C-alpha cells in the first residue's frame, strides 16, 4: 500500500533569518517553542538576532469555540456507542448503529449552522473567510459520512439503495427548494425565468409530486397545450417507486418500471412533446438521455448528482457491487477530461468502490483534525466492517486513529477530560498513553487535583495517584500549610514524606511551644500508622490532651510507653523527660515504682548517648543541661521514694 506523498507544509517563523542561524526548539504541552539560537556557521554573519520566542501550534480546530461543541457532543455519542451490548440480534444492532450515525451527522450539521451564523454576522473579511472555510469542510465531512452510512452501515441492498442515494443527493442539494419557493411566491410563477429550472431540478431529483404541482401552474398559462401537459403529468405520476416494505418483489418492480420506461420512450419517439421544448427536455430526461442530462450540468452541479439521476432513470434496481461502474463512468462523462479529481471526488469514488480503507486514508490526509476519521472508523469497526475487509490491522487502525485524536485533545487546556474516555476504549495502548499524559495536567486548584485523582483512582493508577498527591503535598509545604501537606501525604501513602512533615510539626512545637494545626493531628485516626514519626506526633499530642484533661496517670503511662516502645526519636527524649517533670512533682504519686525505674533507665541511656556525642565537642549550654539532668534525677529519686512508700503502705 503506497502512501500518498504529500509535501510537508512549511510554516514560516517571522523575524528569524533562515540563513542566519539554527532554530532552537522545545516541545510543550500543546505547542512547540521556537527561537533563534547560536550557530557556529552563522556566527561571522553578525547583525541583530531575533529576541523573541515563538509558540507554534498545530491544530487550530480545537481552539475554535464552535467546534468545541462538536467535540463535546460527539464524545457523548461515542461513549454511548461503546456501551452497546453485542448480544442483540443483528437487525436491531444495525438500526442502532444507523441511528448513532444519524446522531453524529446531526451534530455536524448543528455545528455547521452555527459557524454559518458566525460567518454571516462577522465584519472581518478574513474571519468570515475562515468561517466559510470551516463550513465547507463540515459540509464535505457530512456528505462523506452520509454516503458511508448509506453504503456501509445501512448497507442498503438493490432497490432501497437508490432510494437512499436519492435522499442523500436531495439533502445536499437543497437550493432547489429555495428557488422553488421564490418561483411560487412570484405573482405569476409560470412566467418566472427560473420556472423550468425548478421543474427540471425536481425531475432530476426524482421528486415527481413537487414537479407536478409546479408544472400545474404552467397549465393555466397555456390552455391550448393542455393535453400534452396532462400527458406529462400522467407520466410523472405513473413512475413506479420501489417500496421495500411492500410485498412486491424487486423483479416485479423491475418489470413495472421497464413498462413505464418504454411508455416514456414511446412518447418521445412519436413526438408527443415536440411542440413544447421544455416538456421534450423533461421527457428526454425521463428516458435518461445522457446528452440532455449533460446539458443541465449547472442544475446537477456535481457528478454524483448526475450519477444518481442516471441510475434513477436507467437502472433503479442497481446492486451495490455494480455501483462503482456507473460512478466511474458518470464522473468521466461529467468532468472535463483535463481537470484532476479533487480529494473529495476521490474519497466519494473510493466509497462507491466500497474501498473503506482508501476512504479512511484519503480523509486522514485531507483533513486537519482527526475528529472525523477517528469517529467514523470507530463506528465502522463496531459494525464489524473493517475486519470483513480483511485488513489485519483493522482494529489497530481504529485504535491508532483514536489515540491520535485523543492525544490532540489532551493538549487542550480544557478538553483533556474528554480524551480520558477515548483512551479508556483503546485496549492496547490507551492505558499507557493515559498514564503518561494525566500526570502532566496542571493542578491549579485542589478541585482540579481531586478530579484528576478521581480519574486515576477509578483506573487503579496508583503510581500516578501517589505522584499527584506528593506534588500537592510539596506545594502545601512550600506555602507553609502543614495541615494540608499532611493530608495530601496521607492520601499519597508516602511514609518518607510523612516523616518529614511530622519533623516539621515537631520542630514547630519546639520553637513555638505549642502545636499548630491541632484539629488535624487530633484526628489522624488509622492513618497515624503511616510513618513512625507520624505515630509519635499523634501520640505525643494525645499525651498533651490527656494532661490538659487532668488524666495524669493515663498521660504518664502514655509518656513512658513512647520512650520504652521506641516510638519517640532519641533526640526528643530530653523534651519528653522534661515533660515528665511536672508529673513527677505532683503531690500525688503518679508514676509507680516500676515506671520510675524505667524512667531512670531512660535517663541513663540518654546521658550515655549524649556522653558519646559530647566527646568530640564541647556543649555550649552544658550548664543548663547538667542542671536539667540534676533536677530530673532528683525528681525521679523523690518519686521513687514516695512510690515505694505508697506501695508498701497497707491500707487500713
Amino acid at each position: 500500500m503506497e502512501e500518498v506523498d504529500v509535501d510537508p507544509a512549511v510554516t514560516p517563523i517571522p523575524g528569524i533569518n533562515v540563513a542566519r542561524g539554527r532554530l532552537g526548539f522545545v516541545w510543550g504541552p500543546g505547542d512547540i517553542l521556537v527561537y533563534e539560537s547560536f550557530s557556529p556557521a552563522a556566527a561571522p554573519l553578525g547583525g541583530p538576532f531575533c529576541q523573541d520566542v515563538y509558540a507554534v501550534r498545530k491544530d487550530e480546530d480545537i481552539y475554535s469555540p464552535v467546534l468545541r461543541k462538536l467535540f463535546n457532543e460527539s464524545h457523548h455519542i461515542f461513549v454511548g456507542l461503546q456501551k452497546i451490548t453485542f448480544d442483540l440480534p443483528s437487525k436491531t444492532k444495525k438500526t442502532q448503529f444507523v441511528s448513532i450515525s444519524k446522531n453524529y451527522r446531526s451534530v455536524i450539521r448543528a455545528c455547521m449552522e452555527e459557524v454559518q451564523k458566525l460567518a454571516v454576522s462577522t465584519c472581518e473579511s478574513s474571519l468570515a473567510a475562515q468561517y466559510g472555510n470551516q463550513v465547507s469542510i463540515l459540509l464535505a465531512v457530512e456528505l462523506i459520512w452520509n454516503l458511508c452510512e448509506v453504503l456501509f452501515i445501512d448497507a442498503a441492498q438493490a432497490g432501497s439503495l437508490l432510494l437512499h442515494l436519492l435522499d442523500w443527493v436531495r439533502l445536499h442539494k437543497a437550493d432547489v427548494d429555495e428557488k422553488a419557493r421564490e418561483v411560487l411566491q412570484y405573482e405569476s410563477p409560470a412566467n418566472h425565468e427560473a420556472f423550468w429550472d425548478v421543474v427540471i431540478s425536481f425531475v432530476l431529483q426524482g421528486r415527481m409530486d413537487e414537479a407536478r404541482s409546479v408544472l400545474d401552474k404552467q397549465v393555466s398559462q397555456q390552455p391550448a397545450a393542455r393535453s400534452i401537459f396532462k400527458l406529462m403529468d400522467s407520466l410523472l405520476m405513473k413512475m413506479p417507486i420501489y417500496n421495500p416494505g411492500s410485498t412486491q418483489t424487486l423483479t416485479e418492480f423491475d418489470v413495472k418500471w421497464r413498462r413505464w420506461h418504454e411508455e416514456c420512450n414511446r412518447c418521445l419517439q412519436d413526438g408527443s412533446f415536440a411542440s413544447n421544448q421544455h416538456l421534450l427536455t423533461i421527457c428526454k430526461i425521463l428516458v435518461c438521455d445522457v446528452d440532455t442530462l449533460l446539458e443541465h450540468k449547472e442544475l446537477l452541479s456535481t457528478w454524483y448528482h448526475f450519477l444518481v439521476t442516471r441510475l434513477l432513470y436507467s437502472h433503479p434496481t442497481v446492486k451495490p457491487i455494480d455501483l462503482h461502474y456507473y460512478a466511474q463512468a458518470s464522473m468521466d462523462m461529467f468532468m472535463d477530461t483535463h481537470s484532476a479529481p479533487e480529494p473529495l471526488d476521490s474519497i466519494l469514488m473510493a466509497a462507491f468502490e466500497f474501498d473503506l480503507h482508501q476512504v479512511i486514508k484519503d480523509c486522514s490526509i485531507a483533513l486537519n483534525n482527526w475528529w472525523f476519521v477517528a469517529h467514523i472508523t470507530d463506528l465502522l469497526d463496531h459494525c464489524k466492517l473493517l475486519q470483513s475487509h480483511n485488513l489485519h490491522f483493522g482494529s489497530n487502525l481504529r485504535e491508532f486513529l483514536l489515540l491520535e485524536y485523543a492525544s490532540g485533545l489532551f493538549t487542550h487546556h480544557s478538553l483533556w477530560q474528554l480524551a480520558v474516555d477515548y483512551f479508556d476504549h483503546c485496549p492496547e495502548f490507551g492505558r499507557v498513553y493515559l498514564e503518561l499524559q494525566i500526570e502532566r495536567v496542571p493542578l491549579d486548584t485542589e478541585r482540579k487535583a481531586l478530579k484528576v485523582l478521581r480519574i486515576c483512582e477509578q483506573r487503579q493508577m496508583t503510581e500516578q495517584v501517589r505522584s499527584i498527591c506528593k506534588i500537592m503535598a510539596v506545594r502545601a509545604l512550600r506555602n507553609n500549610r502543614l495541615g494540608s501537606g499532611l493530608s495530601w501525604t496521607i492520601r499519597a501513602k508516602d511514609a518518607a514524606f510523612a516523616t518529614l512533615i511530622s519533623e516539621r510539626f515537631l520542630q514547630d512545637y519546639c520553637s513555638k511551644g505549642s502545636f499548630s494545626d491541632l484539629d488535624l493531628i487530633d484526628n489522624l485516626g488509622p492513618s497515624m500508622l503511616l510513618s513512625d514519626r507520624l505515630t509519635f506526633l499523634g501520640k505525643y499530642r494525645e499525651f498533651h490532651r490527656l494532661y490538659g484533661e487532668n488524666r495524669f496517670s493515663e498521660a504518664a503511662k502514655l509518656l513512658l510507653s513512647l520512650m520504652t516502645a521506641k516510638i519517640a526519636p532519641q533526640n526528643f527524649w530530653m523534651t519528653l523527660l522534661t515533660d515528665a517533670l511536672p508529673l513527677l512533682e505532683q503531690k500525688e504519686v503518679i508514676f509507680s515504682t516500676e515506671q520510675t525505674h524505667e524512667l531512670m533507665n531512660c535517663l541513663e541511656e540518654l546521658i550515655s548517648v549524649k556522653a558519646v556525642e559530647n566527646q568530640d565537642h564541647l556543649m555550649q549550654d552544658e550548664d543548663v543541661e547538667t542542671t536539667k539532668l540534676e533536677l530530673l534525677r532528683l525528681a525521679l529519686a523523690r518519686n521513687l521514694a514516695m512510690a515505694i512508700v505508697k506501695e508498701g503502705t497497707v491500707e487500713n
Partner: protein
Amino acid sequence: MDSINAKYVSQKISKVRWRPVSSAALQQPEVFATGSWDNEDNKVSVWSVGECGGAGEDAFEGDPQLLCELRHAGDVLDLQFLDQDRIVTASSTGAVTIFRHHHNNQTLSVAQRWDKAHRYPCDNAPCTGVACSSPELVSVGEDGRVVLFRVDQSGILRTIDNADSSTIHAVTFLRTTEVLTVNSIGQLKLWDFRQQGNDPAQILSLTGDRVPLHCVDRHPNQQHIVATGGQDGMLCIWDVRQGSMPFSLMEAHSAEMWEVHFHPSNPDHLFTCSEDGSLLHWETSTGSDAPSFLQGGRNSTIVSRSSAAPAGGNQSLISAWLSGDSTKGRLETTHMLPSQTLSVNSLDVLGQCLVCGTDGEAIYVNSRVPI
C-alpha cells in the same frame, strides 16, 4: 419524566445559579448565571430561558439564550446572587468579585473586587466558597481563612486567619452572624462573628475516616438542620444543636458530591449532583401509604442508615429528614439526567425549574420538576 434540554456552551461549567425571583410574584425563574472553569479565558455569563412550565409546549422553547457575559480572571469556584442585580464570585486567583448585571442594555460589569482575599505568603490561594447575607459576604479558601466583607466597603471587615489547617471547601450562613464551614478533613465548623477570637464556636465531625466534605446546605425553614456531601459521595444530615455527629448517612453517589440543595420552598425535596455524572432528586415523605411513583427515570429506594436515634418528642416537629427509621418515612430518589455524563459540577433549583452544568460543557434545564 419531561424531556430535558442540553445546551452545549463551549465552556466547562463550574457553577449555575438562578436569579432570585421576588417572592410576591408566583412566576418561575427565567434567568440564571453560570461561571466557567479550566479555560484560558473564563467567563461569567447570564442566560435567559424565557417561558418555563407552560403546558404542552415544545421544550425546545426552553433553550437558554445568552444575555451577556464578561471575562473572569481565574476559575469561577463559587457564584452567588447577592440580589437581583449583583453576582458575587469566588476565583481561583483568590479574588472575590461583585458583578453588576445591567438589565437595560444587558451587560455585565465589575462593581467591586477584593483582589487578594485569599493568599499564601507569596502566592495566590484559590477562594473556594462564598456566601452572602446582604449586606455581608463571607468567603473561604484553600488557605484556611474565613474572611468577612461588607458590600460597598473596599476593606475587609474581619479575617479569621488559620481558621482551618486544611482547605475549607464551602460555607453557608446559618444565621446572620453565624456561618458554617466544611473542610477537607471532614469537619463542620460553626463560626460566630459576635465572638472575638479565632476559634470556632462548635466543631462537628464524623468519627473514623476523615472524609473531606465538599458542600453544605441549610434547611430553608429549620436552621439547625444541615446537609453535607462528601468526597465518597455520602450525603449526611446533621442537627447542629445536638451532638457532634450526623443524624443520618446515605450512600448517594459513587464519587465526590459537589453540591447539595434543599428545595427552597418545598424542603422535603433535596437535590445532589456529583462527579460521577448523576443528579439525584431526593424526596422524603412521612406517613404516606403509597409510594409516589415518579414517571420515567430510574427509581431506587435508598435505605437510610441512621447513626443516632431520633430525639424523642413530638414527631411532627422533627423534620422528615431526621427520621432515621426507614419504615416510618420513605425516601425516593430519581436520576434527573437521562444518561451518564461527565461530572455534574453544579445545580440550582427554584420553583419548578432545575438547572445544572457539567464538565461536558453542557447546561441542562428542566422546567417541570415534580415537587
